[in-house]
């Protein structure tokens, strides 16, 4: 069968006609909605035929499908993709809108600064501090823990509770910090001076106890634990419960510890030239109790705001070794056979604090912190008079009550932050052993921080109003008759501006981090340095303030380098610093003796130029089931005028440990701590021998039963003096061998 040519032409015409009946064409433009300018070369896909093409440089396009064209997809980089239904139209103009992302607010709990060191918590605060390079702690009971950072202590080290500076006679070596690490969510360390947000006193640095964090999900977590320490027979238990329901979390915790007289491998000690015997192997009347409480809530709103309120209460009651207050008799050192009993002399310290924080994040993060606290410290002692005068009628040796108000307003942005801090301290003293008059201190600071090119430039400017009342006592003759007035303190009211300027530069790669900090700053003298004038039982010395002191100035450079190898088995962290101080304020022995009997040589606050330098190193090496850790710190600090060391310069400290994982959840650790002899000595400071201490610990982690921990410290029961402790002046050694058994567990209910 054959068809004519005309038939083929007819069929062709039919097909063409029919196909034209179903084909559809659309033309139009793509443009930027905000600027109403053409969107050049936007990618367009026509559906259902799937043809993809581009608009021209003027945003014009022409689309055509062989079948019906129902929609176009328009895509352009940086703009939201648009799907347009054609609906039979032949012309379309498509508006393009920029991409936008909406994020819910989040709270970042990571360290805010490159120089912040996260401290690994140990079984108690003393061990935690002693195992961190660059930090040491003084210890004579749970209430007398004092952090020492790079050789500085007392008011030169700031202790912060959730960003709130802690007061409470921080100038006293024997005035420990009333904090239990179990009721916090971590510890961070800032080393060195020139700190902007920690305030002007943080010359040595600051220890930050992190407040209780918001749980990431709804549910509850209960952290609980208990421990017993053989040696001073210390028992401790704690519980911290957090519960979150939608945006609201509440938390509550409590800890309690009780400890007996301190065990010491020592048989005698000397105080003001008197020699005493210790018969029982314990320092009598050094037992005590401590309890801590926290309750609070965090309200986390979806609009990015968060409000948290915490109430904290801490209290310690501790006997004081009879040599601390007054001159003991040998009979007082016999002990009564009950290692938990306490008698006078003793101390009670209490902290009651209400703190809050509100923050809201939009373009700027706004934070307001506030706190009010009352800090009370009472020392009781057998009534005694120094020299002539009637014997006191009660046993209140010294009381120090400090009311403290703190507030901070801070704005954080992409390129920096700025803020204002205000604090006021009102201190009042009482008791028959005068040391410090009623005093006050107010600070108003402006703080700025600007980030650029991996650097941060920051500054703080302070106005400090500082002062104290006058104080006089009656002067007696040998017949206890009043013959005049003994002026112990003159009235003082002065304003001392201070400042700090700091530049941080950091370089970071995958496995390396290097930071360099350069800072210059001033620090106003403390109330104690200006007005003290009496026997300080914590240091066993007559300490005298100097109202003519001016703010000291310092210039400091410090660096930090962190490095890990390619297999992550080796990590190295080295910190170093050098600082030059003009008018460094510290206690120096004078050529005079105390005007009151048995007060000994006068130590007076004086300002001398000083130079300090040192470095800390921390190395971890993991090889299979073995972990080697070593850290060390070395420090030098000298008075430039005399060439002698500054008081209480910590000698070189080296800590090594070897851990072996017997099983996934069971590890055994052997440790060795060496403290070098004290070669850098201040005037009249005694040389202290070095010591080598051995320890071991066994740790079992079980998901069901919790974590069990057994540890022995100072296995050989070595008798050693801690050079940086004021008790070293009495020749009192540190605690002897002790062992610890502890258990802890986190109960989660999500």
């Amino acid at each position: 069968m054959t068809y004519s040519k005309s038939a083929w032409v007819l069929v062709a015409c039919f097909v063409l006609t029919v196909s034209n009946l179903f084909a559809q064409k659309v033309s139009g433009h793509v443009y930027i909605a905000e600027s109403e300018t053409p969107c050049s070369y936007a990618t367009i896909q026509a559906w259902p035929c799937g043809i993809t093409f581009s608009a021209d440089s003027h945003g014009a396009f022409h689309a055509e499908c062989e079948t019906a064209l129902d929609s176009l997809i328009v895509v352009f980089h940086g703009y939201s993709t648009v799907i347009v239904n054609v609906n039979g139209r032949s012309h379309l103009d498509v508006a393009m809108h920029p991409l936008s992302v909406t994020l819910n607010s989040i709270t970042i709990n990571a360290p805010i600064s490159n120089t912040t060191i996260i401290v690994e918590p140990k079984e108690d605060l003393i061990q935690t501090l002693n195992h961190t390079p660059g930090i040491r702690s003084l210890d004579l009971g749970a209430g007398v823990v004092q952090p020492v950072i790079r050789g500085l202590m007392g008011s030169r080290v700031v202790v912060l509770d959730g960003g709130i500076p802690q007061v409470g006679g921080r100038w006293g070596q024997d005035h420990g910090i009333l904090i239990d690490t179990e009721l916090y969510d971590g510890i961070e360390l800032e080393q060195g001076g020139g700190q902007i947000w920690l305030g002007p006193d943080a010359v040595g640095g600051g220890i930050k106890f992190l407040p209780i964090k918001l749980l990431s999900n709804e549910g509850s977590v209960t952290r609980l634990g208990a421990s017993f320490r053989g040696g001073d027979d210390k028992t401790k238990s704690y519980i911290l419960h957090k519960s979150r329901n939608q945006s609201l979390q509440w938390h509550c915790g409590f800890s309690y510890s009780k400890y007996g007289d301190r065990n010491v491998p020592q048989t005698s000690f000397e105080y003001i030239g008197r020699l005493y015997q210790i018969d029982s192997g314990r320092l009598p009347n050094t037992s005590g109790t401590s309890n801590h409480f926290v309750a609070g809530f965090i309200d986390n709103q979806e609009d990015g705001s968060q409000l948290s309120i915490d109430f904290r209460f801490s209290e310690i009651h501790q006997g004081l070794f009879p040599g601390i207050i007054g001159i003991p008799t040998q009979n007082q050192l016999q002990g009564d056979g009950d290692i938990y009993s306490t008698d006078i002399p003793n101390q009670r310290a209490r902290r009651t604090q209400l703190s809050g924080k509100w923050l809201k994040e939009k373009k700027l993060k706004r934070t307001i912190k506030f706190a009010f606290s009352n800090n009370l410290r009472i020392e009781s002692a057998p009534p005694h008079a120094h020299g002539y005068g009637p014997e006191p009628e009660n046993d209140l040796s010294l009381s120090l009550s400090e009311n403290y108000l703190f507030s901070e307003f801070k704005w954080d942005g992409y390129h920096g932050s700025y803020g204002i801090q205000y604090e006021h301290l009102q201190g009042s003293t009482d008791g028959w052993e005068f040391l410090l008059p009623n005093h006050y201190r107010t600070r108003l600071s402006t703080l700025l921080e600007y980030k650029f090119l991996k650097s941060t430039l920051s500054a703080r400017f302070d106005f400090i109003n500082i002062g104290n009342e006058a104080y006089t006592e009656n002067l007696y003759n040998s017949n206890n008759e009043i013959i005049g007035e003994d002026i112990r303190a003159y009235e003082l009211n002065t304003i001392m501006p201070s400042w700090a300027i700091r530049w941080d530069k950091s370089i970071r790669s995958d496995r390396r981090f290097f930071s360099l900090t350069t800072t210059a700053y001033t620090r106003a003298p403390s109330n104690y340095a200006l007005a003290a004038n009496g026997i300080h039982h914590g240091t066993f010395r007559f300490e005298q303030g100097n109202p003519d002191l001016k703010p000291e100035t310092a210039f400091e450079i410090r660096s930090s380098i962190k490095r890990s190898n390619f297999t992550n088995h080796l990590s190295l962290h080295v910190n170093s610093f050098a600082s030059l101080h003009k008018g460094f304020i510290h206690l120096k022995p004078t050529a005079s003796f105390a005007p009151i009997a048995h007060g000994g040589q006068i130590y007076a606050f004086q300002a001398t130029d000083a130079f300090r330098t040192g470095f800390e190193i921390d190395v971890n090496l993991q090889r299979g089931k073995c972990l080697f850790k070593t850290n060390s710190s070395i420090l030098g600090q000298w008075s430039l005028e005399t060439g002698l060391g500054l008081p209480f310069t910590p000698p070189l400290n080296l800590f090594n440990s070897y851990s072996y994982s017997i099983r996934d959840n069971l590890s055994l650790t052997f440790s060795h701590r060496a403290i070098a002899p004290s070669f850098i000595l201040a005037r009249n400071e005694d040389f202290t021998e070095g010591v080598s201490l051995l320890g071991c610990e066994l740790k079992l982690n079980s998901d069901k039963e919790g974590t069990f921990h057994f540890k022995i410290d100072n296995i050989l029961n070595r008798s050693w003096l801690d050079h940086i402790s004021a008790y070293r002046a009495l020749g009192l050694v540190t605690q002897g061998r002790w062992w610890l058994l502890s258990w802890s567990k986190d109960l989660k209910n999500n």
Partner: protein
Amino acid sequence: MKNLNLFFALGTCIFMYSCGTTDSDAPTFCSEAGDVAIVDEVEAMAGSTLTLNQTVCDNDALGTANWDLHSAEGHAHEGEEEEEGLILFSGSWDYDFSDELSGTSTTSGISTDIPNDVRGVWDIVISLVDAEGNIATDVVTPLHIENDFIPEYQLTTVTGLDLAVGGEPVWEPGATITVEGTLTDSDGIEHWGYHLENEDTEVEIAEDEGDGAGSTEVSFTWTIEIPTDASPGEYHFHMHADDMLENSMETGFHVEIE
């Protein structure tokens, strides 16, 4: 990093090289004949004037010498030879004097009246600092004070105590204790007595007293029954007496009841 450490090391060297030096040598007790530091002990009478001297030296400049006289009861001093035997202390007396010095060698001295109601051993402690604040090791010398004004107990027997050695007796509840000796006073004894007191509670668990009738010497033998319900603890055995001129004396010793 290497450069930085080098910088720190160099900085340390420069600063330490440029920093000052100071006199860090402590002053010395450069004694001459009769000085307190070189005698074994000093003897004195209550009611008399005590005069003491000590020569002191320093390589640069002297500062202050502090004289501290206090009862030796209840403690010892490093390097000091312990007094052997039981010492009965009477009265309280402290003396404290700071003597500001100058030059590199001088004699520091004190002169003071000893009260007439003290008896026993006192410590003479001399502390010395130079002008820089360097402090010398203290000199400690015992001062034996005899007394003709107040009555004097002399014990010959105390249960549980070797009087030639000293220390403290340990007595038990229910025990019978003997305290024997003599009480003398040239002016005549008017009254005597004793009591055993708990140092914590101040409760007296035994006591007795008597009339001396003006005798210059009274011999006594006290028999003391320790109550069976006596609380264990630290006690003090107080002995007191008055003479005919109303000079009072109190003394005693420490006791432990177990």
